[in-house]
């Protein structure tokens, strides 16, 4: 049996003297503070082609986004910011709206694609604030997707628990978002990711090199050789979707008609953030044009459609009233929608054609 006395205090755990602890802390702090800038300098740049978009695998890599935004803003005259509609869900790199516009303009690097799948306005506000500092003095096309205001749930103004995209970009200590019920640990972790560069960089490593797997788990679940073999030591390219450009329409997919209540702009949490994003971008010397997206009108009941059109009109009026230029996208034909908000390849083409008529690239180059 055991004994309680006469056991050296530090037989099993390191117990340091104050000076030793301070020295160790200084060494560790030096490494932690130095590693991110060192790595950013050494890092392989993403290959920016005219049809460039962020890899879908890297949608949660905000540290990478900051780096990529810097490269994209260096090379493009204008940038698109938005969610999966701009990113180009269900189509390959060459068929996204910015890529189609670039092709139509002769393959130039005119319109950069800085959209991320699932980027709702509340997340966008944090993204632009913390990771979008490079977007300065640009012509910005900011996509507004009515989907984020179709129900209190998506609008984040409801009280029912809801797991929305990009939780790490939500305001972690804004208790008014009742549907976000993360633990204090998750909130503190997400907050620290923004404050401590090395933590955001670790997320980048996981997303870019480890298939979004935790390094600790990966080391234990795979042989050492396998860990190295499966690491990709460069940015994953924009992937080619399986069955890209050939997805079924919403009707073929059997999606039923919807009756959405929609949240008024004045009561909307998402629209509050959308306004904040515009202000933030403008303060950074950008010229902001809002691209008003559509929500599949064929998939809505007549009552829902009436509410939707009223909301769209209210948003357009408010933005116009605030002196923001608006590009009001047309509603597509039923067979051009894949679901509630995403067009099919033909729909992206239609939208790009419409936008091309609205744009004057030579003017856009100079703000």
């Amino acid at each position, binding site marked *: *049996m*055991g*004994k*309680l006395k006469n*056991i050296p*205090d*530090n*037989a*099993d*755990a*390191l*117990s*340091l*003297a*104050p000076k*030793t*602890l301070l*020295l*160790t*802390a200084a*060494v*560790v702090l030096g*490494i*932690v503070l130095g590693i991110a800038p060192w790595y950013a300098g050494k890092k392989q740049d993403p290959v920016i082609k005219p049809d460039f978009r962020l890899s879908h695998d890297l949608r949660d890599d905000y540290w990478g986004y900051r780096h990529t935004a810097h490269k994209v803003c260096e090379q493009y005259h204008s940038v698109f910011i938005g969610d999966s509609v701009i990113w180009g869900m269900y189509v390959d790199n060459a068929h996204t709206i910015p890529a189609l516009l670039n092709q139509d303009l002769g393959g130039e690097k005119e319109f950069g694609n800085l959209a991320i799948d699932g980027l709702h306005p509340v997340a966008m506000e944090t993204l632009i604030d913390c990771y979008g500092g490079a977007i300065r003095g640009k012509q910005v096309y900011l996509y507004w997707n009515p989907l984020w205001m179709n129900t209190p749930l998506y609008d984040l103004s409801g009280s029912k628990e809801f797991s929305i995209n990009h939780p790490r970009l939500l305001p972690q200590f804004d208790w008014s978002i009742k549907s976000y019920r993360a*633990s*204090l*640990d998750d909130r*503190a*972790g997400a907050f*620290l990711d923004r404050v401590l560069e*090395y*933590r955001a960089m*670790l997320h980048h490593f996981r997303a870019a090199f480890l298939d979004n797997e*935790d*390094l*600790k*788990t990966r*080391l*234990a*679940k*795979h*042989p*050492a050789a*396998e*860990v190295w073999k499966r690491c990709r030591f460069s940015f994953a390219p924009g992937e080619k979707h399986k069955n890209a450009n050939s997805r079924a329409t919403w009707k073929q997919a059997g999606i039923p008609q919807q009756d959405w209540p929609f949240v008024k702009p004045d009561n909307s949490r998402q629209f509050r953030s959308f306004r904040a994003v515009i202000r933030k971008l403008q303060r950074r010397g950008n010229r902001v044009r809002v691209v008003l997206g559509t929500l599949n009108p064929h998939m809505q009941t007549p009552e829902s459609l009436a509410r939707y059109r009223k909301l769209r009109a209210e948003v357009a009026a408010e933005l116009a009233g605030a002196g923001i230029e608006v590009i009001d996208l047309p509603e597509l034909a039923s067979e051009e929608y894949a679901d509630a908000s995403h067009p099919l390849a033909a729909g992206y083409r239609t939208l790009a054609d419409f936008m091309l008529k609205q744009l004057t690239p030579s003017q856009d180059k100079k703000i």
Partner: protein
Amino acid sequence: MLFQSWSFLICFLPFAALYALLRRTRLRLPLLLAGSYAFYACWDFRSVFFLALITLGDYGFGRGIAAVPRAKKWFLGGSLLLNLGVLCSFKYLNFITENLLLLLEKCGVTPEVPEFDWLLPVGLSFFTFKSMSYTCDVYFGRLHAERDLLRYAAYVSFFPQLIAGPIERAGSLLPQLRHAMPLAGNDFAAGASIFLTGVFKKVVMADMLAAYVNPVYDAPAEFGGAALLCASYAFAWQIYFDFSGLSDMARGAARLLGFRTVLNFDNPYVAVDVRDFWRRWHISLSSWFRDYLYIPLGGSRRIRIRVWWNVLVTMLVSGLWHGAAWTFIVWGGLNGLGSIASSEFDRKAWYQKIPKPVKQLLVFNFITLTWVFFRAASFDDAFEVLRGIFTWRAGEFFFPAVPAALAAAVWLYQLVWASRRRPILAHPVARVAAFALALLAILVLGAGANTPFIYQQF
């Protein structure tokens, strides 16, 4: 609220600062008590009732023993009944009824008995044993009964030790609660470094090894002998890192408040025999069983067969303390047999000639074998693991090189510490390098979900 979580840090740091400010005032004990109860309520506020019940009960029994010495047996009996009653009701009732029903079924009787789906208050085994040790010490005259209920409540609920020990004796902690302990830079440095060593053990080592062990032990029939053997060794290290890490965090947090608490682990895997292992593993519990069970049974001052019996009973009860399952009882029994064999081998001349490293290796392998019963979900699983290992069943296998290398480095550190070469590790450069590496490992590998501790469930 796990020690290694941000929420603990967010709450603990302001609390520690406030405690440091108020520790020379009358608010010291109420603050500590309120902090401890708030910490416990974070786990499950309903369990607070049982903590308060045990505290009030044993405080009363302690006062009773001091006030009416003639009736002290009754007061001690009351304390044991209260503590063991609460413990059995929550932890062992289903186990007892299940086994009774099985027995009755064999006799042809099948009565309808409802299953008790009661919530086991977290840390119950720890704070009941802590509180019981106080009444036993008062009964045996080792300790004066505590007059101040607030101080006694602060002792039982002392939050760094509330969830999973160490089971600190009242004789050690109550005096520290009586007066404000001096709090110097040394305490802060020692507390912070011990706490962070614990974090390293848990979030880097234990959690990494768990990622290898869990899939294998969750479905042992699907793995070959090599994987099962490797997972068994990995578990031996996982449980060490998990529990000793927790103990370090508890000691570190206590030290940051100025309290010096018991050391719960002393490099157990450098033990040279099984008795030595138990002098180094979960020291606060093994010493509890020594003082309150083994010695009252007669200890080692009896004929040899009686001493064997005392050891075996103590270890079987220790096994049962860990969990209400036969696998834990077998685990305890195997350790009891190992302890008896160790004491018998020690008398033989040939055993004395075996080199120390060989003995250490033999003990480590024996302990690893007993852990199979501790870790396996059932007897069937335990035997499946052993069958797979001893028949060397073919199956998919990979060697977790990185966790193994890290565990080997820690083992080497401990072996050197236990050897004559210890001064090498005491050199400031070695200490800074070791601690810096541990901190960097926490920063790089420590991110991710916080997993609960193994001993928390007991």
